[in-house]
């Protein structure tokens, strides 16, 4: 099998990449491990998708279907229920029930494996190991796709978006959400989800709280919650036993990069995803990355947009239209910036048009701040923001006119400065 572009993963990032590549006349294959395309979207039956891309508020399945239809109209080929086993530049090995082991040649590859949820083990939560501890996404699949309730009385640890959406969904299904606990002193998901899923349903939420014990031998019988210090240490004497039968975890998403690692793509410790340039090419020429595999976005619309750019760039590479840059500038995350994507930028790209930087902060600042971009100790751009929150990605556009200032530098610093007054 030979293609110009092969896309690993048929979620929103992968589908957008495939469509963009096909629109540039590349021959495109999408490989998806699930039985249906759409990634996580088919189980996201709530609305909130598509406002930016389509100007409409859509459910996850509807949003996905628009991309699936478009891909199909354009003649994007797809393989579902197929797992990629290995990625190397120009070559993919995959397996499925029908074809056995598949060897696929592709001039360009787009990695679009998405992200996964942080499980219990990664948190080292003490206690027993009974049935009834799930990640919020697994519970979402059980409820929305399989039609089964994982429990009746829930405690949700973490205020990630899936956890908050599930708090509402479970309540609507007649279950009781006893508590949402967030270890940080602020909500980790979107404010919108907090208002619509937690506040509107009167679900008690406690900030600076975590689970310090899980009880129950066969099934969860209770969790013990406690308040924590700013460095997340439980405060003795604040423990509270909350009877429940299920603990859901919504404590962060991690880009899924097993295949990237195996392929030898360089990863960024801060994002957990590949180091990419402004066109989402990884450290390996011909291997691109799209969507949540690069860093965890706060909206599917943004995933699709990033996917488009990656797909476009992959098609250009495959069709011999891409010029490899001579120079790359390091985009460095400094004070209160957790990471910046892209991590490297070809300064010449600014002559073709403005470039989007996306970043997340480490800590919330609930008052005006300046986001500052510096090169060689000089501020080259500065933007005032009303606040910054870790749950909300910051977009920052570098305009064409900064080209002259970036042309000769090695690195650019990006940081948050608290504005006075």
């Amino acid at each position, binding site marked *: 099998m030979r293609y110009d572009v092969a896309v690993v993963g048929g979620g929103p990032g992968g589908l957008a990449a495939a469509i963009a590549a096909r629109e540039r006349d590349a021959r495109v294959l999408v490989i998806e491990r699930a039985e249906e395309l759409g990634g996580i979207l088919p189980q996201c039956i709530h609305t909130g998708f598509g406002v930016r891309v389509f100007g409409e508020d859509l459910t996850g399945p509807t949003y996905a279907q628009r991309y699936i239809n478009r891909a199909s109209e354009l003649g994007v080929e797809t393989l579902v229920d197929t797992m990629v086993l290995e990625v190397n530049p120009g070559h993919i090995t995959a397996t499925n029930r029908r074809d056995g082991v598949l060897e696929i040649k592709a001039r360009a590859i787009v990695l679009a494996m998405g992200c996964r949820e942080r499980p219990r083990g990664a948190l080292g939560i003490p206690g027993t190991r009974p049935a009834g501890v799930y990640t919020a996404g697994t519970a979402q699949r059980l409820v929305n796709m399989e*039609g089964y309730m994982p429990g009746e009385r829930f405690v949700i640890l973490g205020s990630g978006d899936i956890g908050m959406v599930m708090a509402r969904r479970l309540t609507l299904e007649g279950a009781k959400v006893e508590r949402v606990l967030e270890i940080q002193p602020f909500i980790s998901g979107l404010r919108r989800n907090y208002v619509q899923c937690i506040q509107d349903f009167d679900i008690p939420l406690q900030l600076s709280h975590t689970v310090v014990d899980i009880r129950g031998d066969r099934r969860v019988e209770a969790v013990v919650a406690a308040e924590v210090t700013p460095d997340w240490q439980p405060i003795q004497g604040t423990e509270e036993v909350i009877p429940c039968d299920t603990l859901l975890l919504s404590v962060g998403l991690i880009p899924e990069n097993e295949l990237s690692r195996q392929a030898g793509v360089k990863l960024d410790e801060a994002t957990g995803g590949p180091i990419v340039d402004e066109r989402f090419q990884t450290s390996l020429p011909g291997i691109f990355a799209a969507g949540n595999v690069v860093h965890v976005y706060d909206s599917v619309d943004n995933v699709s947009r990033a996917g488009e750019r990656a797909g476009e760039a992959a098609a250009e590479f495959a069709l011999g239209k891409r010029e490899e840059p001579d120079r790359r500038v390091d985009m460095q995350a400094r004070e209160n910036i957790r990471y910046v994507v892209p991590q490297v930028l070809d300064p010449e790209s600014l002559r073709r048009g403005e470039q989007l930087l996306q970043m997340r902060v480490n800590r919330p600042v609930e008052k005006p701040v300046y986001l500052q971009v510096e090169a060689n100790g000089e501020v080259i751009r500065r933007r005032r923001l009303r606040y910054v929150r870790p749950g909300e990605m910051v977009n920052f556009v570098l305009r064409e006119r900064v080209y002259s200032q970036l042309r000769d530098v090695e690195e650019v610093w990006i940081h948050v400065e608290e504005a006075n007054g």
Partner: protein
Amino acid sequence: MDYYDVIIIGAGVVGCLTARALSRYKLRVLLLEKASDVGTGATKANTGIVHAGYNPLPGTNKAKFNVRGNRMYPQLCAELNVPYERQGDYVVALSQEDMRTLEELQDRGRRNGVPGMEIVTGDEVRSAEPALTPQALGALWASTGGIVDPFLITIAAAENAVTNGVRLLLETEALGLIKEEGRIVGVRTNRGTFRCRWVVNCAGIHSDEVMAWAGLDGFAITPRKGEYYVFDKAKSAVKTILFPCPTPISKGIMVTTTTHGNTLIGPNAQNIENKGDRAVTSQGLAEVLEGARRLVPSLDERDVIAVFAGLRPSGSTGDFLIEVHQVGATACGRPGGFVNLAGIESPGLAAAPALAQWVVEALQEHGLEMEEKRDLNPIRPSPPRFNELSREEQAALIERDPRYGRIVCRCEMVTEGEIVRAIHSPVPAHTYDAIKRRTRCGTGRCQGAFDTPRVINILARELGISPLEVTKKGRGSELVLRETREGGDAL
């Protein structure tokens, strides 16, 4: 009423290997286990070390059976097709005092009959294990130390025993012994009574309670909790086995690799009251991490994928209690009685094959007729492991059975074919955890987040039950509790 020559109480590693050893002979053997799977007690929460045998004091049962058992492992694991690696182990000295301890251990090892020991320099260890602390001055190296998967050796032994005619009853809890005129003639369980000539006590943490039923007192088990961390395979820190110098009650918190390439650290040692308490504590975890970092300072909490705790059945004599109580002739006129394997804590895993062999010899000595089966099959075939096959082998396997082309667990690359095979194996996996132990499904870095809904559906389909009846580890641990208002939509 069923009648057996031997009933074994407890299907941990000792019980299962004993059942297998007895299955060579024309005997009616019944293996009773109260849990929904074999190997779920002390066997489950185990470091997986096949100790060389320099730790136990010379002359003890621990010393004798450890060294003997260790010698039996290569052949045993070859017959049972269980991963076993004898890569050697190190006891690391961090001080001059520790260096003297190494000499004591080496001397003890020699007296116990441990071959292949050597005291090496810190640099020599570091060249094999670069992550070892620069403070390590030297180490005792024992070439016969190794690792095995404690679940798989137990499951494989049980499967082979069942294949050779042993009857295994899961979810069957022994509740007492049946005595007639002072003789033990059977076992009472939650599923009825079973009569027999001999009872073998392999009840692990509960072995003192079974002894009390037999009228034997003066021996008590103290559950001693040990806690562990498992690290992501991609971040493995060591290739071999690193022990600190031992303390009087424990071999200390170690850093080892598993047969699957995960780094494992632990255990601490805490005597507890409740035999059901397998909860991990934050203090315990902190102790384990701190202890392990004394050997490998670079261990990073962020690479942890799971934590667990287990209970050691620690006997009041400090040694394995191994004895036969012959209680005259049974009703049918033949000798019978009670065999005790109690207090089998570390190095119990290493000793287990030798303990099983001892049971065979002891019963023979005490008048149990042992005639070898002609049709014995000592080989337990290895189930295919998709992830360990070459691309050609994978393709051939999928051609034979397309279910091997569907990956259910993405982290460990476990296929539907492997899961279905485990469900229908000689010791069938009927719970999520039983599948996990056999196939590694759900043991990777996502810890089952991806595969759980899929495994629920496969179990329901293969067992002909509703997803509502699928459990994590037996009744009471159901994974989903009811249908949603729109109703279930299982595959």
